[in-house]
């Protein structure tokens, strides 16, 4: 594989990765419950227990189907989100170890986040519901706005490290973290993570104005898997930010792997905290911003990074 500084561990360790991802998802869900309960004036403890209650509720619920549903594609769409998140974290080095040490790890991550386009669309399409279909349209329209800026945001660390290998990118931030001199790329990246997780302002595809949109007809375990998938994508996106922008496992006192977890959890909490605080980015308006503001901004960022990289070498 590559000559990067990370060690590839056996496939069995993938389980540990999944457990860590699960813990991050749980953390995000608990904090989200707390934040939501606080906003609506309900009890904080009840809010913190919300993931448990929701899980129990959805497991108790009956699975339903709709008339002439495309069940296979519908369920593939929902379940695919969890799989995608798992494949994303496979290339995130946990300190010195990684499950998959690809030369093109960044491209891998990018390919996974593009997969979400298809999965969300299929979930909206499969139920044979007008609202689901409209939700699917909306997601694709939004994706046109966020995907290119996200891609070019991922390019910045790769140029600076002169590698597409995630471990090498993390190691290249020996002196100073990339977030310090690539703030625009970092912010655009976080926006992209929220967008492919259909999160907060980027959730018009699940809007209450179209009865839940893509998720309008989901119930029971189908909804549980779909919601879990969104949280998992958010957590995976937060975890991937660590080697890309936040110096990977570097940090005082604690071991490298723990630093990765701590940093990932911090990024995740910022995303959870921001969920309800902003109005929705309506797709038709957001495309304008994506192309006229974010894309030029992140291209300028890439240019600066490239100049520094050439000048420095």
């Amino acid at each position, binding site marked *: 594989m590559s000559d990067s500084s990370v060690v590839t561990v056996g496939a069995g360790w993938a389980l540990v990765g999944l457990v860590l991802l699960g813990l991050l998802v749980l953390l995000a869900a608990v904090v989200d419950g707390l934040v939501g309960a606080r906003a609506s004036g309900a009890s904080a403890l009840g809010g913190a227990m919300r993931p448990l*209650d929701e899980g129990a509720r959805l497991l108790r619920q009956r699975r339903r189907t709709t*008339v002439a549903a495309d069940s296979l594609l519908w369920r593939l769409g929902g379940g695919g989100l969890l799989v995608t998140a798992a494949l994303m974290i496979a290339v995130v080095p946990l300190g010195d170890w990684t499950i998959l040490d690809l030369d093109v790890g960044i491209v891998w991550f990018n390919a996974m986040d593009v997969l979400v386009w298809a999965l969300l669309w299929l979930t909206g399409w499969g139920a044979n519901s007008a*609202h689901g279909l409209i939700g699917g349209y909306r997601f694709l329209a939004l994706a046109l706005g966020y995907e290119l800026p996200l891609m070019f945001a991922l390019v910045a660390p790769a140029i600076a490290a002169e590698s597409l290998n995630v471990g090498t990118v993390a190691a290249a931030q020996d002196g100073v973290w990339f977030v310090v001199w690539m703030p625009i790329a970092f912010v655009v990246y976080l926006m992209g993570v929220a967008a492919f997780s259909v999160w907060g302002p980027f959730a018009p595809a699940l*809007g209450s104005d179209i009865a839940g949109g893509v998720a309008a007809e989901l119930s029971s375990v189908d909804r549980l898997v779909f919601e879990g998938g969104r949280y998992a994508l958010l957590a995976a996106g937060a975890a991937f930010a660590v080697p890309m922008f936040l110096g990977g496992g570097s940090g005082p006192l604690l071991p490298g792997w723990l630093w990765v977890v701590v940093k990932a959890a911090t990024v995740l909490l910022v995303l959870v905290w921001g969920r309800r605080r902003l109005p929705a980015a309506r797709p038709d308006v957001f495309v304008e911003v994506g192309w006229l503001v974010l894309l030029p901004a992140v291209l300028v960022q890439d240019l600066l990074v490239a100049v520094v990289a050439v000048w420095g070498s």
Partner: protein
Amino acid sequence: MGLTTWITRRAVRSAHVLIVEMPGHWTTRVHVERVVRAWGWHPAVAPADADLLIVCGAPGPQMAPLVERVWGQLPGPRAQATVTAPAEVIPALGRAQAALLDQRGQWEDARDRAIEPDVEHGDTGHGDVDHGEMDHGDMDHGDMDHGDMDHGDMDHGDMDMKPGGIPLAEGSEDRDGLEMDVLHVSLGPLLPHWPAGLVLDCSLQGDVVVAAKAAWILGDVVGAHESDAYRPGTAGAVRLDNVATVLALAGWVAAATSAWRLRDDVLGAQDPHALRPEIERLRRRVARNRLLRWSLRRVRPIDAAELAERTWPRMWEGDVHDRLMSALDRASASLATSERRRGALDGSAGMAGPAVDVTEVLPQVVHGLDVATARLAIASLDLDPLGMTQIQHV
């Protein structure tokens, strides 16, 4: 305590409640929402997401089959209750909760239900729901019946094919002159964040409304049980509720939640006047948010010429953002004097100017908009659910 019992108890703790409002039962709906939030439950946005169906106001002969259809879409375990007055809310929700907890009852309910929903509903009491849906000819057996949130009306190919009994969509020229499928989708009458009793039959290309027709479906006896619930501050609370709806549709959950809580405070306050500073604070917060302004600017602008030509009320001038701010101003103004006159409710605070027929206005308002902006535009009109009685009987 067995595992099943434990799961049941935990599950019911965060029940999702689909709240449907019959025309004239605004106060009851608001009370239900308040109790739902206080109990740590959550409002549902679609039947598939709901465990409880709470009907505010007794459904009349037109509404009952629609309610029945929505009820059929709850996945189960499920329970329903009809609440006709604010005082009944807590006992009714308590009974619904007990029904949801009752394992045996839920098993019996589930046993008799088919998993695959029934499409051939043409005769399930729908024939009498005459609100324009029937003029799409043979296209539309599939699309109204779920009332609002339905599945089953889009497909492509040959008109003779009817997968699952649903006729396929037919094409028509879109705005660019290209052929595109047309879907017939009814918005309302049982849709969250939607004027109670309103049905908007839309023809959609993609998600753009190319034609629409509006109608009212009446409930039982409009508002009869509620008249004693009007208090000083109600007009302001209605404005705040409409403001919250716009904010919720704009996706700004935090501000919408604040507006809803403020609405409940105003309704419950001895002296609503004292809450004016709170409304002013909410207004400043909304005004300051650049993202919101940028998102709602230029959405369905109505200029002075259009107002004059169509004799629409002055308060509709501007875009959705202008109308949102003016609704907040009216909320604040209506609390300025502690009004005692019931007449102030529908007059000065609500539909100022000449009475308009909403069923004529809405198709003009939503024409050419996509579903999201159409919803925003309708919500921004700040229609008065309490003054609705006059309009319906026109």
